């Protein structure tokens, strides 16, 4: 079958006469959409952080007026003292914002959009307009969620997991409108993710450049591909569940209301059937991007590329059959608990393979400690802690004690902050030049890294000890319990560290803004990387390539003996390279 017609389109690059609105607002360019996601989700990251600070104030200094808390209305914090009903809104909205509006869009919305076409060598996504709708429905979802903080009765109050029937019945939760807005917003998030995922999947399957075979894809693209499959299949379940929850709330159906025959555990099954793949949606892209950055920073090919790919696939596959481990104590069938325990423990194996392969990559490397590399190494170090602490709760008898305690809080933050967020602190400066044409400030980046690394551990490591004492999650005032009173100094310590951690992030945000205009111009390839995106000007132009590039090798050929330099771009043709079979058609 010939395809000359398909590939011979005039390349649109370099003469860009779109209006401002088409270019920056309702843009269909995957890079602009990625940048839109970046700005919006960084804002939500900040919102989520602010909510966490208020929680930490209450936990560290229960009942004391919060500095600056006077600006909050009477219904939240009269005189700056946080009310219990506001506290559980904080718990709920912190989780919701961080999971659905910060980490997930930062990893998938930003980097799937930005990187996939650039790294596989195509002009844009397969469906640019659907891509635009994906962003705008995410944006609408975010606005609805943000607005729900300010409605009468306040935001949703049942934790980000929205366990029914607390979430389903307003008379039990005390919230009303906010609870419904949560459901609506989550339906929109689901829509956004589905639209995004179908785009990523189609693009990666169908639009790879000549020579870009499956096993020449960078691990970042592999992980985003698998993530997209997880998102495609998991988010509709969440949307379906949120629709049923909304119907329970507004039209009086009884899905989750045991008083009328519904089942409370059904919500948990639906939620976690989505929720566990979601956990991998939140970590797989981070793993992929860290793989790219570690190989680059070590100037060495990634250790065991194929097993890295298979590990991603294995994690994604196992991710579908482990959701019950969130429900060991829920009264679920205990035999089902046993099988979920085994599948959960098995998932440690591919995670271990990935960790050892990252270490193998660094072994005998020539490590350059740029800001991205520092954060990527920190990712490995912190993800290990989060991964290992997961084994405790996978073992059901131990989970009986630590379930729903601060041990879980420590675990999930070691994965989501220590994992995903450190990966983002690596990825953002790494691909910043390709987005904006400038480098982020290296010195401040390092200051930010070290302070974050220290304060982060000071915040979350002690939480393991709180959890081992039996400190429950989501409690407004731990001093209510006599057995927790001796731990109050530790809560204070965690809170103060958390404030410092939050303050440290200001360095990052200032650096980000400052570098937009004042950063050092980066040139084409500031990190001497092999990926296709680094052959483009920075920032990459609309339509990316004049002509689709041809790929001759995998993305990790660092320190190859074939060339004197320590990197060998995927597009560079050495005399020994054969022209890929598919390239002859594309070249004309």
């Amino acid at each position, binding site marked *: 079958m010939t395809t000359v017609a398909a590939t011979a389109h005039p390349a649109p690059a370099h003469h860009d006469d779109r209006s401002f609105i088409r270019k920056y607002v309702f843009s269909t360019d995957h890079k602009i959409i990625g940048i839109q996601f970046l700005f919006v989700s960084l804002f939500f990251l900040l919102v989520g952080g602010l909510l966490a600070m208020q929680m930490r104030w209450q936990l560290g200094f229960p009942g004391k007026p919060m500095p600056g808390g006077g600006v909050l209305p009477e219904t939240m914090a009269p005189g700056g003292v946080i009310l219990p009903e506001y506290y559980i809104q904080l718990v709920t909205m912190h989780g919701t914002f961080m999971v659905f509006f910060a980490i997930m869009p930062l990893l998938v919305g930003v980097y799937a959009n930005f990187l996939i076409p650039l790294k596989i060598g195509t002009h844009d996504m397969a469906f640019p307009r659907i891509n635009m709708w994906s962003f705008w429905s995410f944006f609408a979802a975010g606005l609805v969620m943000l607005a729900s903080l300010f409605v009468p009765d306040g935001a949703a109050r049942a934790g980000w997991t929205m366990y029914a029937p607390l979430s389903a019945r307003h008379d039990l939760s005390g919230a009303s409108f906010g609870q419904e807005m949560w459901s609506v917003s989550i339906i929109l998030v689901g829509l956004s993710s589905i639209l995004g995922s179908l785009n990523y999947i189609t693009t990666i399957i169908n639009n790879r450049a000549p020579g870009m075979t499956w096993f020449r894809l960078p691990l970042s693209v592999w992980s985003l591909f698998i993530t997209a*499959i997880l998102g495609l*299949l998991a988010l509709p*379940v969440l949307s379906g569940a949120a629709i049923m929850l909304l119907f329970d709330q507004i039209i009086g159906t009884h899905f989750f209301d045991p008083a009328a025959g519904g089942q409370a555990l059904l919500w948990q*099954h639906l939620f976690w059937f989505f929720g566990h793949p979601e956990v991998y949606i939140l970590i797989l892209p981070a793993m992929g991007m860290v793989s790219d950055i570690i190989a680059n920073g070590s100037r060495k090919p990634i250790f065991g590329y194929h097993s890295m790919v298979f590990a991603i696939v294995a994690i994604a596959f196992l991710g*579908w059959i482990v959701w*019950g481990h969130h429900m060991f104590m829920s009264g679920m*069938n205990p*035999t*089902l608990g046993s099988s979920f325990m085994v599948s959960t423990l098995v998932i440690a194996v591919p995670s271990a393979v990935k960790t050892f392969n990252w270490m193998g990559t660094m072994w005998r490397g020539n490590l350059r400690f740029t800001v991205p590399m520092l954060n990527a190494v920190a990712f490995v170090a912190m993800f290990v802690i989060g991964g290992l602490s997961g084994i405790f709760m996978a073992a059901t008898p131990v989970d009986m004690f630590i379930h729903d305690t601060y041990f879980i809080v420590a675990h999930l933050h070691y994965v989501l902050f220590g994992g995903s967020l450190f990966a983002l602190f690596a990825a953002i400066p790494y691909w910043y030049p390709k987005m904006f044409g400038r480098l982020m400030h290296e010195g401040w980046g390092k200051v930010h890294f070290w302070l974050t690394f220290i304060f982060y551990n000071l915040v979350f490591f002690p939480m393991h000890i709180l959890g081992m004492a039996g400190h429950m999650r989501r409690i407004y005032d731990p001093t209510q319990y006599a057995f927790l009173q001796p731990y109050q100094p530790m809560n204070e310590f965690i809170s103060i560290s958390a404030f410092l951690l939050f303050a440290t992030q200001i360095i990052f945000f200032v650096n980000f803004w400052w570098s937009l205009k004042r950063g050092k111009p980066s040139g084409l390839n500031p990190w001497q990387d092999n990926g296709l995106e680094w052959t483009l000007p920075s920032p990459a132009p609309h339509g990316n390539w004049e002509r689709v590039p041809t790929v001759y090798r995998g993305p990790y050929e660092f320190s190859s003996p074939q060339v004197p330099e320590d990197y060998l771009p995927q597009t560079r043709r050495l005399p020994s390279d054969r022209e890929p079979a598919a390239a002859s058609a594309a070249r004309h």
Partner: protein
Amino acid sequence: METAHKRPNYILIWVYLAVLTAAELALAFKLPISPNIKLLLLLFLAIWKAALVGLFFMHLKFERWNLRIMAIIPLPLAVIFILAGMSEHIW
């Protein structure tokens, strides 16, 4: 994408579907058999009809395997979910 395959007789499939639907109705309301057998037979007929639509109208019978996989992947996941949810009530 020329049609390399022989085109199925769509009208015949239509007749099939109509007859199967009539059979379902008869089975559900006319035949005096035990509810469990009825349930199994009805599910069987429904899956048969769904398979006819999928294979012939959606041309899955004539696609390559790598596209068929796309249609098949979600099915085991759905089955796992439903079985796990049902197992709550049989212990």
